[in-house]
């Protein structure tokens, strides 16, 4: 299989992470295992890198390039599964400190390691520590429902745009080239607008669920209601 493209910054973080694992006295796992998630979730816990400590305890590391983004829901889900009894401890690894990632990890009980300039780990969030601000189950459920509504809206709207794009040559028969170009630019602009809308709402829902932020959840729901055209 040809490996998918990886951001060179992530490749660098991966290599530094391996050095830090070695410095921590862990052994690097050459062939990482996938731990089935269960709980109705697809896939499982694998991570970008895995290690084993002296007691053969397994650790899975997910590398995050942008510490200014809250921990996404899919990683919060995996961290919850890991805490619930999987034979693996999950950590996010970041190259820089940022309050957004740190706070959301603390709220979501997701382990967070800082990779220092000396290529060693500094634990910023211990996944075994219960936090007083653990996200309220009600908000997490609401955020999940809102996400489904957002995905449905996104799928319906981008689906029709893609259909139009796929039939662009039929739809533009008889148009002058200027009108045709304007039509295609309109289709492209709509597609971009919906894509950006989806990214924005998703990031808001991640942050709302991770931080138990009801106000942010309300703003995200408002955006879902309005759609990309607002």
């Amino acid at each position: 299989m040809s490996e998918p493209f990886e951001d060179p910054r992530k490749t660098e973080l991966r290599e530094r992470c391996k050095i830090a694992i070695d410095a921590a006295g862990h052994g690097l796992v050459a062939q990482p295992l996938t731990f089935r998630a269960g709980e109705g979730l697809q896939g499982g816990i694998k991570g970008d890198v895995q290690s084993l400590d002296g007691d053969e305890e397994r650790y899975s590391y997910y590398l995050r390039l942008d510490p200014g983004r809250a921990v996404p829901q899919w990683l919060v889900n995996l961290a919850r599964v890991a805490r619930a009894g999987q034979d693996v401890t999950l950590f996010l690894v970041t190259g820089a400190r940022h309050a957004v990632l740190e706070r959301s990890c603390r709220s979501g009980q997701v382990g967070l390691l800082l990779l220092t300039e000396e290529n060693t780990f500094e634990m910023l969030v211990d996944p075994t520590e219960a936090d007083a601000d653990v996200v309220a189950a009600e908000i997490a459920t609401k955020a999940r429902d809102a996400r489904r509504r957002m995905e449905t809206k996104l799928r319906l709207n981008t689906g029709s745009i893609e259909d139009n794009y796929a039939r662009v040559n039929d739809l533009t028969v008889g148009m002058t080239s200027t009108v045709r170009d304007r039509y295609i630019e309109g289709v492209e602009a709509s597609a971009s607008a919906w894509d950006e809308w989806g990214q924005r709402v998703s990031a808001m829902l991640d942050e709302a669920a991770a931080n138990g932020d009801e106000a942010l959840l309300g703003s995200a729901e408002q955006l879902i209601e309005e759609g990309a055209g607002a």
Partner: protein
Amino acid sequence: MSTEPATLIQIDPWSIRRNPNNPRRYFNDEQLDLLRTSVQEVGILVPLIAYEDPDEPGSFVLMDGERRWRCALDLGLDAVPASTIAPPTPLDNLLRMFNIHSVREDWPLIAVALSLREVIRISGEERESRLAERTGLTRATVRRAKRLLNLPDRELELIQAEAHLDRSQQVHREDLYLEIEQATSVVRGELPAVAERFSRDDVIRSFAKKAEARTLRAVTEFRDVAKLVKAADNDLVSTATVTSAVIRLIEDVEATPTAVFNEVAALAFEQQSAARKADLLRESLAQFAPNGELSAAFREALSELRDAITQLLERRG
């Protein structure tokens, strides 16, 4: 293109490889978070489209769904739903990449350009209108992509290497190179002494270095190069002066197009503009009858203008 109906099957994502003709390999990792959460919680609802590699039975090549496939790998899915189709011809493969991916994935222009280069190579078609029809791109996009393809390979590689970054983090931006390409064409086309002394690749590289050294305020500064050359065309500044200024611009990484333009030609353009306004004013004044009455305010305005003109002419000797 084959019209064989597609077959829906479950495939191990590790037996799939990306389509070599999909140049959209520059993914911003964290922008896939939305899709990862969706795939994890509800699965892949829209099947991938893939074809079995004729040279490697049991192995599949992706036609559509690279983002879903990447999420499946990240999430450790055992199998993904996929519609399998007959292997397309190389040209069909490329054209389908355009029609399936271009709008949905918002390809960067460099990705469009590299795919278009392959379409041109395989089909032999170079006409802008025909390429636009076949790929579903606008003619403007085809034109911009072709201009990008005029750049040296080294510069294309620099653009490619940063294509996955947010625009604010990119130095070798596509719009920078479109401006540079335009400025280079004007310089080499209009100033033979520059064309003799510097190759096209040298000029492009030296202009790109200004962005690398962060001496530019905006990529549109390169439009001042064309205005500078136009000053020689319009006999506002001598060709020798403009040539010397452009050579300095090429050789000195700290020299910016706007600074050089302001120094060499801005005043001449302002004088040209004032001369045009003077022509218009003269025509406007000619419509007043010699013995017609002039208001006091008008007389005062004309008098002030005359004083300003006299002062300027005397100062200039």
